[in-house]
């Protein structure tokens, strides 16, 4: 079952016995999607839709979208109208976490569970939900442990290594992933081929579903030690913690987690970023704003000012998911790292 936003309550899909897989785009052009989606639409959404038109997602039984931004709401209509995925579903995600919003979202999650049960003729039991929570929480905790190894100087793993580990969690069966992570954790702690220190960087942005930019950063002497990506720290930072009914606990976790930029609690995200910058002793920050992500484009100048006020050099970059401006990005990142590295 394909999903696109980290506000999708994956535990419920897992409990239904289905495999939740995050839907990504490719790095090339989006010629197929361009016939349907205008040039000013989110380049990630366009790229993912392009992949669907190309047939990359013909293996999906279902596609679930959430109301986490204007681009998603409208792109859902594209999938419904033009993709070949047999079942589609839309979860209404509030943009705030008041008690009323929690109650609304809980009801949305209940409806989603019923839809899964009806569509796949598979009852979802309480015990399977509890198990899903355990497996997902374990995954989050393991990812966090590995993530924290980047606090060390030099970090025990590179930004690219971590990003790829995290991305694999988004598309793999979680139980299997947990086993791999446990083994990996042991290996990393004992590794002798520790990566180069590089300029310690924090990156902020929305989605990062590939490691090209991270590799580029490393190729010019930088290293991402902390991130504020929805496919990075914001994916696993918070556990399902509340007791009681599983669905309620699951729903609560999503609205209360470190927020994405579409949520009303902007300051909470800014605090998370500031906290990361301190804990991971970063030397500079790069803001990757994917075109055409409205919510991040509005937040970016404010977050940039906050990071600068902390004494950090900040580079603001807008990037197309197709990587059409890759050469330009490389030049700017290289100059920036050189500038920061020279200051040391």
């Amino acid at each position, binding site marked *: 079952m394909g999903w696109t936003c980290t506000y999708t309550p994956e535990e419920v899909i897992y409990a239904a016995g289905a495999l939740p897989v995050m839907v990504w785009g490719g790095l090339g052009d989006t010629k197929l999607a361009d016939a349907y989606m205008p040039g000013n639409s989110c380049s990630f959404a366009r790229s993912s839709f392009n992949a669907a038109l190309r047939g990359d997602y013909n293996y999906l039984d279902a596609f679930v979208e959430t109301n986490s931004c204007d681009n998603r709401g409208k792109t859902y*209509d594209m999938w419904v109208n033009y993709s070949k995925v047999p079942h589609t579903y*839309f979860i209404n995600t*509030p943009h705030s976490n008041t008690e009323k919003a929690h109650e609304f979202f809980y009801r949305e999650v209940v409806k989603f569970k019923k839809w899964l049960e009806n569509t796949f003729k598979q009852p979802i039991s309480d015990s399977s939900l509890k198990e899903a929570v355990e497996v997902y929480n374990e995954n989050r905790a393991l990812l966090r442990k590995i993530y924290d190894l980047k606090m060390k100087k030099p970090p025990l793993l590179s930004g690219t290594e971590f990003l790829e580990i995290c991305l694999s969690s988004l598309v793999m069966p979680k139980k299997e992933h947990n086993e791999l992570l446990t083994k990996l954790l042991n290996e990393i702690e004992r590794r002798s081929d520790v990566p180069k220190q590089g300029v310690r960087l924090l990156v902020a942005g929305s989605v990062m579903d590939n490691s090209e930019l991270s590799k580029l950063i490393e190729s010019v002497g930088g290293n991402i030690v902390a991130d504020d990506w929805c496919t990075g720290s914001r994916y696993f930072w918070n556990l399902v913690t509340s007791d009681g009914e599983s669905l309620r606990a699951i729903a609560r976790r999503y609205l209360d987690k470190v927020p994405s930029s*579409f949520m009303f609690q902007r300051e909470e995200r800014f605090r998370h970023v500031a906290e990361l910058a301190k804990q991971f002793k970063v030397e500079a920050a790069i803001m990757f704003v994917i075109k*055409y992500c409205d919510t991040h484009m*509005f937040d970016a100048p404010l977050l940039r000012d906050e990071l600068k006020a902390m004494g950090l050099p900040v580079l603001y970059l807008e990037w197309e998911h197709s990587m059409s401006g890759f050469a330009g990005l490389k030049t700017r990142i290289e100059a920036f790292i050189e500038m920061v590295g020279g200051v040391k």
Partner: protein
Amino acid sequence: MALPQKKLKSTTGFYRNYIQGFYQRAHRAKAEKRPVAWVASTFPVETLQAMDIVPVWPENYASVCAARQISVELCERAEREGFSRDLCSYSRCVLGSMFGYEKELPEGGLPPPDFLVATTCACDTHLKWFQVASRVYKAPLFLLDVPYNTRGGDSTHLDKEHIEFYASQLGELFAFLETQTGRKFDMDKLRETLAVSDWTSRLWTEIQSYRRTVPCPMDARDAFSAVFFMLCIPGSQQAVDFYTQLRDEVRERAKSGVGVVEDERFRLVWDNLPLWYNLKIFEYLNSLGAVVVTEVFSHTWTGSLDPSKPLESLARKYLPNMANSSTRRRIDIILNLVKDFHVNGVVLPLNWGCRMMSIGETIVRDAVYKKLGVQSLIIDVDSSDWRIAREAQVKERFATFLETLKR
């Protein structure tokens, strides 16, 4: 050969007669320390009107700046602060006006807000833009969190949960407004305001109905000016008075067969926003024998309000706004307009900084053609940032489109 447009008397001097007064009243309220609120598009403004709070619409102000030909300079001002050129031009324009502009601003700029009210109903942009303004002015922001109308139903086909979630937040809104103003919220006053707003809405709908007449008695340029009351202060006597006068004039024209152009060859529907900086484009269309006989925009802001069910009514009026709905809703509206208004072409102008008004238009185009055999023109423009499309290019697209319709 089409003859030049005959202007409506009611809308002549609309800006001078109504818009200027609107901003003067807002500045006066500010000077007299009466509460001034910034209001986001699709916010249930009747709630503010019922508490005598002066509503200020940044979105309307952006269109004013575009009409006055300074929107691009203001956008550039915001871009210098780091706000991306790909953001909504309305928001860039207003942000630009906030960050200090060397020349004089139209109507003295926007009065700073005592507080702001936003909703996710129209778009995420309003939430984020108002968050920036809230930070700059250190003024509190209330968010009305509105679920997406996934099934795209109209006011009578909405999800029960959506109405409940919407209505339940209005209680919190009243508490917020009481705290901000020190005034007591009065449900009876709200009921009265809703009755006025409902009447405004009926009048506007009636005015629109006369535009079904061939030839069409009222052009898009008039509609995009006059819709101001429907949008910004629907619950006011001024709105009722103005629409009564306009209704009488348009009705009379329809009866006596006076059209916008004499030789009406093309009847068009216009989706989304106009080019505020170039409303003359409608006259260009007139010169080619084409009249925009109706706009989706003119059918987006109406909604009946039942004073005996104030909260539910407001939810039903605003929730199905097409910006907050799946593309199906937009398709339904346009299909009906094409049929009711005897339309032979659809204009689907995108809006560069607006995802809601851009994604999905291909689905609309295909559905309208499949169901009714009517063609659409999708055109890349922006409501306020004229750097997106050159005028000559836009005109040429229109001329070519009209040629296609002849065949």
